[in-house]
């Protein structure tokens, strides 16, 4: 037998193998209907909301874990062994540093190597992965998740979930669910200085300006107000009472409230690009006024957060953006810098504006994505039950926040506290000299597991001061969040190209207006025409078309 192979034979073999490949590919596709039957290894037959989940066979589940430098990951953390003890599930974390978490997540998902659970995903961040098929359309499977569905129903979160649906009417991220909106970000002042000058904490943006003017009079050198987070927080919280959306931190390229710039008008059922409307103009004029009269430090928009904090904590400035954690951090720094008892700071009320006292925000928090590969596991149903228990049951939410009852925490008269010998320094619980921090040494109260929950659980880590501040928010109106644009995959790509150019331009102009390099009164038309040149009309029309298409599909 001759071993010679002719060219024609090689060609034929090649074609044959290609054909086999194509045919094999065909048979494996088309598996679109969500089927869980036959994947019931380890599942609990009588699992229901409020019940402890325990897999009937040991399961091992991989998880993308965001490593926070403030409490670096340790494999010895008690939280992992406690989860295994209660659920018979062993979590295998892929640990990714905080700094470049989104990059590695993107590589892992796009290369098809994503772990089963992908933690720390903010609503909207899942969109780029939807087309690729590596992320599970989790809304198809929530019927297997009794705690999740119960909370959505009881807390009336259907409309909120609509905001994260993609064009196929499904959602791909399991968000943290909040029973009530609990804003955290506001302004803080040197209250001792306000007292000395006979001033109150401002409750409106006009009063804020007055207070800054008085502070400037008392301290003519320098600026009374210099902000952290690139000025994005203050723009964000001021935008709602001005009836618009704003807030982008150029230094860290992070979006706070500007989002895609598309504000939804629920009466007209259309999107409009808010950064060119009169409300945005009024907002920008206000901040331009603060900078022009020397009340606001122009470095706000370029300095690092450390620099802004240092200015405030060394007594060079008197107002700054804050949240509950930063209030504590600033106190720690000021105890060192100025001396204990030599200053007074606290969270001020969120100021109201032309539209009254308005808060924006969603009751959905960041959450988890699931890998499509997980749906091929033969224990998929148990997997879903575990996800449901671990991220949506009250029992698990207490576990991940506080640990084990009477060992790491105590619960008396509706109040949680750390047990003696333990502390939770980040939230100011326990004796500061206690040896074990339940966050740093045991893994509790970390960001990978804690998303939302009942008001009681969310507020359980709040100190009395913070609870009192939360109470001041009850008389605010809530601005309904703009729904995400239900683009198809191709529309989404086209819109993304335009959006990048338009939002970049908006941010540049906004900064120039505020810093006084451009005048709001005379250069506004140039700004709008530049945006129009970047395809603003097509961008807004595209969003409205996507909205009406998606809605007619729903009706049909």
């Amino acid at each position, binding site marked *: 037998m001759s071993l010679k192979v002719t060219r024609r034979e090689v060609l034929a073999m090649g074609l044959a193998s290609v054909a086999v490949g194509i045919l094999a590919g065909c048979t494996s596709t088309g598996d679109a209907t969500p089927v869980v039957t036959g994947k019931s290894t380890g599942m609990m037959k009588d699992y229901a909301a409020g019940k402890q989940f325990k897999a009937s066979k040991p399961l091992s589940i991989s998880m993308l874990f965001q*490593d*926070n*430098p*403030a*409490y*670096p*990951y340790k494999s010895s953390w008690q939280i992992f062994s406690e989860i295994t003890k209660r659920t018979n599930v062993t979590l295998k974390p*892929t*640990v*990714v*540093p*905080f*700094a*470049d978490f*989104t990059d*590695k997540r993107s*590589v892992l998902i*796009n*290369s*098809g*190597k994503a772990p089963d659970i992908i933690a720390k995903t*903010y*609503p909207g961040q899942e969109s780029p992965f939807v087309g690729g098929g590596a992320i599970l359309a989790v809304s198809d499977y929530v019927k297997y998740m009794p705690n999740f569905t119960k909370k959505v129903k009881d807390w009336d979160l259907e409309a909120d979930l609509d905001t994260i649906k993609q064009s196929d009417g499904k959602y791909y991220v399991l968000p943290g669910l*909040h029973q009530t909106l*609990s*804003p*955290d*970000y506001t302004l803080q002042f040197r209250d001792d200085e306000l007292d000395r000058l006979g001033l109150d904490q401002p409750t409106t943006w006009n009063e804020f300006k007055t207070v800054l003017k008085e502070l400037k009079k008392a301290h003519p050198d320098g600026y009374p107000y210099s902000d952290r*987070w690139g000025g*994005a*927080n203050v723009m*964000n919280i001021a935008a709602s009472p001005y009836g618009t959306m704003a*807030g982008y*931190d150029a230094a*860290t390229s*992070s*979006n*706070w*409230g500007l989002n895609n710039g598309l504000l939804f008008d629920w009466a007209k059922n259309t999107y409009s690009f808010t950064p060119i409307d009169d409300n945005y103009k009024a907002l920008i004029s206000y901040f331009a006024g603060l900078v022009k009269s020397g009340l606001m430090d122009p470095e706000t928009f370029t300095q*690092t*957060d*450390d620099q802004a*904090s*240092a200015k405030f*904590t*060394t007594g060079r400035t008197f107002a700054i953006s804050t*949240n509950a*954690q930063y209030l504590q*951090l600033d106190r720690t*720094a000021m105890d*060192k*810098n100025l001396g204990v008892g030599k200053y007074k700071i606290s969270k001020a009320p969120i100021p109201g504006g032309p539209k009254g006292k308005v808060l924006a*925000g*969603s009751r959905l*928090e*960041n959450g988890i994505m699931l890998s499509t590969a997980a749906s091929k596991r033969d224990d998929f149903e148990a997997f879903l039950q575990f996800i449901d228990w671990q991220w949506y049951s009250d029992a698990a939410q207490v576990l991940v926040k506080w640990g084990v009852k009477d060992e790491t925490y105590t619960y008396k008269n509706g109040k949680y506290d750390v047990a003696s010998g333990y502390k939770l320094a*980040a939230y100011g619980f326990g004796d500061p000299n206690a040896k074990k921090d339940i966050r740093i040494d045991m893994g509790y109260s*970390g*960001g990978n597991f804690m998303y939302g929950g009942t008001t009681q659980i*969310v507020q359980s880590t709040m100190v009395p001061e913070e609870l009192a501040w939360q109470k001041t928010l009850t008389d605010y109106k809530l601005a309904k969040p703009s729904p995400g644009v239900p683009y198809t995959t191709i529309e989404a790509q086209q819109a993304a190209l335009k959006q990048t150019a338009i939002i970049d331009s908006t941010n540049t102009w906004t900064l120039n207006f505020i810093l006084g390099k451009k005048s709001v009164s005379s250069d506004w038309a140039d700004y709008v025409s530049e945006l129009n040149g970047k395809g603003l009309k097509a961008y807004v029309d595209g969003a409205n078309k996507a909205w009406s298409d998606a809605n007619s599909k729903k009706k049909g």
Partner: protein
Amino acid sequence: MVIDAQTASSIAAPGPVTTKVRRKRTAMSRTRGEKIFAVVNVVVLLLAVAITLYPFLNVLAQSLSSEKYIDFGDVTIWPLGFNFDTYKIVASDPTFWINYRNTVVYTVVSTAVSMVLSTMFAYAISRKDLRGRGFFIGMALVTMLYSGGLIPTYVLVNGLGLTNTIWAIALPNAISVFNVLVMKSFFENMPRELEEAAAIDGLSTYGTLLRIVLPLSKAVLATMVLFYAVANWNSWFPAFLYMDHSNLYPVTVYLRNLIAGATGAQDAGASADSNLTQISANIKAVTMVLTVLPILFVYPFIQRYFVSGVMLGSVKG
């Protein structure tokens, strides 16, 4: 650190200075021109020294200062509120030392792998009688212009089973084409007669490389070791990409997480619990100093080869 600045300035300065001098020479007498050259030279070099040295001294001073003075912005190049406790705090973190050890291991192994592969490749393509030489050089040059892209590369490395091993760091970028071309030029300039004589005396190709060529190439080898070692020491991205556990990270990832992680707020407005914590300025400074010191001490030992090594390769290319 003084040496570091000198090295930096000796690399940075020659360009602008020489052009200036040439221009002066046409207009003025030679001696006067030379005087001006000397003055300009000293001024420019001192400026370069100051620019490169100041940030380093500032970080060094911060690492030895108490946080209060850093917050006030008072620390320049001299420590205020002298405090060595921060060093003790950083040194007491076991992860820091695990990552530090990783950096040393990764640097040594990667540099060794890179040197072996680059030397052999450069030597082979420096031989004009190599069949298909143009193809091999072309193949190397193509990688300078095009790459496979991040995700395909990741899929490949992962498919080869290299993730979470040192080889994921040592192999994918083992050959730097730039370094290979410098070495190639160096080898090309070695007298051909030496190798012919070695061949007549019965040495094989490998024998010629090991016994004749390499001993005569110490300058370029030392330079390449330095290039590779510094690049490997400072590198963080491959480790970040291919390693899934914090105990496999090099110290650069530890440092990056400390500095960038604590300040990179993302979409924080939406979240009730942002999980951000400030890492104090002096801890950052101490970590930076500890990370940069060892590689800094490599320079004095290699410096005497350094300038001649680079010049030999580049000028005669």
